[in-house]
């Protein structure tokens, strides 16, 4: 694995474009910036084309003989299927408003990381084969042939976009480079170009229900470890149920939270909360993954993986579905699930049995976000909270890309944070809510081998955290995304040491006063709680 440069070396960013035009500037597959290709077995498991051993560093990528035909045919098909693609190919005026909105550009200075040029990588090929001007005038019209080198460039840069949609907020026509990247990745997948950090979770999720490929008994064990920890900390023993028919609610968290800190703490908080209010819910081992790396593969793969949620809800006969803290999961649920796998006419409009609130905004999809659910509980005074148990923390909140820009879930988590902790500080306006910066590892790019690129892409986010860290002493970065919880800790360690990462519900779990609990001396991390009495001493 490539050696990670020191932060000040990394910040030696040259924003001047190279002397050579972008079509003449070849890609440099420098270690630390790209990801390992998909393992053939994983491709086989889900029936993706051209499974083989290969490496981006090799000259020969072992493409199928008619690869060019496949890609161009695939592009033609998708132009017919997506108005978005046609429009986004045709309407860009190259005004450059999106250029410095991409975290990868800000962290690398590489002009091909400007959303406009990322899109031009595909657009230039589109012009050549699908527009009159491009066919006649060729290069001068910005058209170019699809060659192996172009394909390699696609692989490099379309797996260097986290589909965060920040660029689309600023584009006067709403051109969404994430949409272009999604379709470009579909095309790449047609000839077997993909990355292992996506394909293997996809294959695992398909066969075993979750990204890590944990089998049912393993999953049950892992959950039990969490309830054991909860019992140690609170004295309250929680019983969970799995695959239980007749429960009112199916609860689907992202599996990442089951296995790795600090996600586990956040999941514990959710389990404690659901226990405390006595919700009649079940977990599922079959639909044990909220996340969906199909989103990063193709629309079809997204649908194949997502199908489990409704299928399982139907099999178990629940009334509605509750989803955990995960970013891209909610892009799929909010913008794709109902269209792809609905209508969910076997479910009912979600109603909180505790508060009676009817979640009409989810009356068709029948799935609500845990922060919507919890905010409603708090607003209706249904749970007892002691925010001082989070007094160790000065908290800020990282909006995950997808809940902000593909949903608009902005105030729910903030409302909760205000109620569960006493010290909350916002990062600067330009870096939160719909303008939030990506963690640098979304859309399947959270691997280790591209660590340098992750640190670069995450720099704008880290920079904003550092600002509140220095100004207010912020030491806890809260979020509502499992990928964030996996990739933000190393990012903080690299750029802003002394800032930790947590899920919003970890802080809920800390603050939650449970019936029959013992005196809480430790928070969910087994760290001593600094209580008011301690301070008096």
């Amino acid at each position, binding site marked *: 694995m490539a050696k990670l440069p020191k932060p000040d070396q990394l910040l030696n960013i040259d924003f001047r474009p190279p002397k050579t035009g972008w079509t003449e500037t070849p890609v440099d597959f420098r270690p630390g910036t790209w990801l390992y290709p998909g393992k053939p077995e994983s491709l086989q498991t889900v029936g993706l084309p051209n499974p083989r051993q290969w490496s981006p560093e090799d000259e020969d990528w072992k493409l199928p003989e008619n690869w060019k035909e496949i890609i161009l045919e695939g592009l033609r098909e998708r132009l017919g299927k997506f108005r978005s693609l046609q*429009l986004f190919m045709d309407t860009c005026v190259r005004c450059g408003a999106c250029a410095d909105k991409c975290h990868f550009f800000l962290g690398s200075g590489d002009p091909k990381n400007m959303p406009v040029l990322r899109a031009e990588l595909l657009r230039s090929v589109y012009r050549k084969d699908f527009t009159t001007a491009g066919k006649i005038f060729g290069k001068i019209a910005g058209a170019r042939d699809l060659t192996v080198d172009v394909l390699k460039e696609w692989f490099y840069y379309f797996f260097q976009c986290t589909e965060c949609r920040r660029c689309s907020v600023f584009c*006067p026509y709403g051109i969404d480079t994430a949409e272009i990247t999604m379709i470009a990745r579909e095309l790449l997948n047609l000839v077997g170009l993909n990355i292992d950090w996506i394909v293997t979770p996809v294959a695992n999720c398909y066969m075993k229900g979750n990204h890590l490929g944990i089998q049912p008994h393993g999953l049950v064990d892992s959950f039990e470890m969490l309830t054991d920890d909860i019992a140690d900390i609170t004295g309250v023993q929680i019983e969970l149920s799995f695959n239980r028919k007749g429960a009112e609610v199916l609860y689907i968290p992202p599996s990442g939270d089951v296995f790795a800190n600090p996600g586990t703490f956040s999941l514990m908080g959710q389990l404690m909360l659901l226990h405390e209010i006595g919700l009649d819910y079940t977990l599922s081992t079959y639909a044990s993954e909220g996340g969906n790396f199909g989103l990063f593969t193709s629309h079809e793969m997204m649908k194949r993986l997502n199908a489990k949620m409704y299928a399982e809800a139907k099999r178990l006969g629940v009334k509605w579905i509750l989803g955990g803290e995960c970013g891209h999961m909610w892009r799929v649920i909010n913008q794709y699930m109902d269209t792809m796998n609905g209508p969910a006419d076997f479910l009912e409009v979600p109603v909180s049995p505790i508060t009676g609130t009817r979640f009409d905004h989810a009356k068709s999809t029948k799935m609500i976000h845990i922060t919507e659910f919890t905010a409603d509980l708090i607003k209706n005074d249904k749970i007892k909270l002691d925010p001082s148990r989070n007094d160790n923390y000065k908290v800020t909140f990282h909006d995950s890309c997808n809940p902000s820009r593909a949903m608009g879930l902005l105030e*729910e988590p903030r409302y909760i944070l205000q109620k569960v902790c006493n010290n909350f500080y916002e990062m600067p306006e330009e870096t939160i809510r719909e303008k939030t910066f990506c963690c640098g590892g979304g859309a399947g790019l959270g691997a280790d081998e591209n660590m340098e690129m992750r640190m670069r892409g995450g720099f704008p986010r880290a920079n904003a955290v550092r600002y509140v860290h220095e100004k207010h002493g912020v030491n806890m970065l809260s979020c509502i995304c499992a990928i964030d919880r996996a990739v933000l800790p190393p990012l903080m360690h690299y750029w802003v040491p002394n800032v930790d990462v947590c899920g919003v519900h970890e802080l809920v779990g800390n603050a939650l006063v449970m019936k029959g609990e013992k005196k809480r001396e430790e928070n969910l991390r087994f760290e001593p709680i600094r209580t008011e009495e301690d301070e008096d001493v």
Partner: protein
Amino acid sequence: MGLKFSLLMVTALILGVFLGVEALGLSYLFGVIIPYIALATFIIGFVYRVVKWGKAPVPFRIPTTCGQQKSLSWIKQNKIENPSTTSGVVARMALEVLFFRSLFKNTKAQLVDGQRLVYQWEKWLWLGGLIFHWSFLIVVIRHFRFFLEPVPAFVRLIEKLDGFFLVDLQNVYLTGVLLLVAITYLFIRRVFIPQVRYVSLAADYFPLFVIMGIALTGILMRYFTRVDVVAVKELALGLFTFNPTVPEGISILFYIHLFLVCVLISYFPFSKLMHMGGIFLSPTRNMANNNRAVRHINPWNYPVKVHTYEEYEDEFRDKMRAVGLPLEKDGTEGEKEAATTKE
């Protein structure tokens, strides 16, 4: 390269009219035939492009949400930046089309001291763009004076407002000047901002030069060389009433002006200028974020291969039983049978 190429093209085009009209006497070609062809190309091409876009399905509802969603009743929704109703969408689109709302969000990111990212105020592109487009629109409306007799009241009104300023006892139309200033600014920024220059193609410079040429010749005609307005109106009215004539004594400047307009409108449907139509169709802006309340239909939704619960249980039945997970098919009998038959 794109810059030089475009400049060369526009120069060649101007030279073409000059030779055509002055040397070859092709004033009917440039005054009548080409304008008709250009207009036909524009209309047919524009409609064709929009219809082509319109025919492509919108499989998913993918608005970019730029504000709080509609969820709990006590959380204030941002009804415009994250609309959940048609009227919200209309308001959002109106702000985009009339005031370039998204562009107004623009900032400039800068790395200071080599380690801090700051986001600076940067609305020049928005301002320049807005001035350019509004001036362009008003200039176009003012031109109806040449095509319509009597001149409609709203055209007169706009003229009056626009010509409010007097310079040397002569009305100066503000928009004409602003148009030229704004388009020049857009050109300058394209050349001087390194990143923008790096992504620019011939197709980005070309319309700028053409529009500059149009504005420049227009201003020259109006304020400096004094073209024969009566003759021009006769030509324009003739074109408009399909009764074309070419009066004598119209200056070459006018033919250049007219020809560049023809170039612009016939180029329009084949180029990025189609953003005028595209902006209305953009799915990230013109859709409501009511995804979870109202199901969106994908016309080409097709069944896909999934891994069913039954297949899953078949694979893990024993392990599931071992940890006490409920099963659809207990399967113990079947296994016993299988075991006995094996023996």
